[in-house]
């Protein structure tokens, strides 16, 4: 039982990273990026290249991954969100979905369809009572906590973070006090993509890195942001752990193949009966 709970906590930590970028994006840009899964995959591939071909250490690879995913996020905003921003949210959907197939196919051409394996930063297993855990699982917990802490510090203490929060509260007001909202949009997408990239890098040693690796985590991230209430950070974090718990429990007591179905069922029910999510404020009309 405790090993199931532990697995849920680890999964929840990764899901938090995978989904909080979407929540941040919704807060600032009021749309969702359907190439988020390709960003997750991107982080994993950059990590793999930097570690295996670049011969860099884990820290170096991580820094390169963060820089590259930031650039990818700025690019995603530039090509598939900015041209349609404020005009047509449907085009944002079509644009980002199209971009996600472009990215996935690019990975396929560059790296082939066969799964790559990223070595974990720390190898080995710990035995804590009846609980068997790998060092990588503790690494995931620590990295997630540090990432969330850094993000919280950036959002509350730096000028960039304050302008991101200002834009998410009042677009027009931010323009009036001289915030360059376009730059804020780019930076927000960059940060959201970094978070996706870190999730991908942490998933690398668990799943094989292949061109469509990020798609399932992205779908789960949608379930999470809906469940938590789109745009609510606290809701997203809570929902990430709920989804992880449901997945682990359904997976071990009902059957692994029923886990994704239970998540979609949850998403449908939430959207029908409580579209503002469990913790969010109603933004349906916004």
């Amino acid at each position, binding site marked *: 039982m405790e090993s199931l709970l532990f697995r849920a906590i680890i999964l929840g930590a990764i899901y938090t990273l995978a989904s909080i970028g979407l929540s941040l994006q919704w807060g600032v840009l009021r*749309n*969702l990026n359907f190439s988020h899964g390709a960003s997750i995959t991107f982080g994993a591939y950059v990590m793999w290249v930097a570690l295996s071909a670049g011969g860099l250490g884990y820290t170096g690879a991580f820094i390169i991954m963060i820089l590259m995913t930031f650039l990818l996020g700025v690019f995603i905003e530039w*090509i*598939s969100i900015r*041209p*349609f921003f404020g005009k*047509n*949210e*449907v*085009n944002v*959907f*079509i*644009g980002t*979905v*199209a*971009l*996600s*197939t*472009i990215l*996935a*196919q*690019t990975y*396929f*051409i560059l790296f082939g369809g066969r799964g790559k394996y990223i070595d974990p930063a720390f190898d080995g297993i710990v035995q804590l009572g009846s609980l068997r855990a790998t060092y990588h699982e503790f690494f995931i917990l620590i990295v997630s906590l540090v990432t969330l802490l850094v993000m919280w510090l950036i959002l509350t203490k730096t000028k960039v973070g304050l302008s991101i929060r200002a834009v998410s509260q009042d677009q027009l007001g931010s323009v009036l006090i001289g915030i360059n909202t376009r730059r804020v949009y780019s930076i927000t997408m960059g940060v959201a993509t970094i978070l996706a990239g870190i999730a991908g890098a942490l998933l690398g040693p668990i799943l094989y890195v292949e061109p469509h690796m990020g*798609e399932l985590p992205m*779908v789960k991230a*949608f*379930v999470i942001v*809906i469940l938590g209430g*789109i745009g609510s950070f606290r809701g997203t974090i809570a929902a990430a752990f709920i989804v992880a718990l449901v997945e682990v429990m359904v997976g071990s007591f009902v059957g692994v*193949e*029923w886990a*994704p*179905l239970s998540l*979609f*069922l949850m*998403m*449908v029910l939430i*959207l*029908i009966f409580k*579209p503002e999510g469990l913790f969010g404020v109603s933004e*349906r009309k916004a």
Partner: protein
Amino acid sequence: MSVRSTHRIKIIYAILLGVFLLIPFVVTDDYLLHLIIMTFVWGIVVTNWNLTLGYGGMFHIAQFTLFAIGGYASSISADSFGISPWLGLFIGGFTAALFSLVIGLPSLRVKGIYLILLTFAFHFGIKELVIIAREYTGGSMGIVVPSFGFGTLFYFYFALFLLVISLVATRFIEKSFIGKALVAMRDSEVLAASSGINPYKYKLITFVTAAFITGIAGSFYANYLMVIGPEIFSFTMIVNGLGMIVIGGMGTLFGPIIGSFIITFFMETFNAFEEYRPIIVGAVIILMLIYAPNGIVTEFNKIKEKLKAKARS
């Protein structure tokens, strides 16, 4: 539009239909005929999708869900219960219509990103259900479907028939009170609602009508290719379908079919660059969205108007 010009358009339609009817006598290459049939099949799918999202303003992504349901329903009824494929076509259509009610009843109440996400959840949820129900659906392997046992000619005319039905249904709904209500709603939901239009009812009618034809098309597709599998639920399918609509022109009658023609034939001509095709399709979609968001048909009409204006002056 004057009486004379509508009469002229009717003549053009009749000539076009005649040309299409004659295609199998001119095109003797079996493979080319197969491509044309596939163009028709995707044309049916995107014409009905366009009916709901272009005219109805309901941007949902459940079109391939309904297409797959139609295909699976008839295939399962033939494979597991030995029902004739002719009856299977209707079983496919009715099952898709039934599911469209299940999907549409909650989904069409919401708009924008909520509608996209809700239909997204239905789409992938039903895909998971198909994979779990391995006993009937063959899981990730799919089902081998018995065919009608007719030649290519039969499939050609049947697909053309379904395509014409889709176009007629689109035109009929557009011209009827439902169409006017839908366009009014698409342009201003508040105004439409305050003048006594019940948006929900008309949206649902349109959605179910489109689903019925799409379901029949799905059964036809499964019978024609003699196989159906879960890759029909893939993202690539959705992107290609959206590409056809965006390239041809959302909310135009013939745009989606032209888009279907372009993408189907593009996929074949660039067979040698197989790996690069999805990238090119994706890039074209994004470029079209940025530079010609209303599609080829609308751009073509603009050029025609300009030429006319020039000729007059």
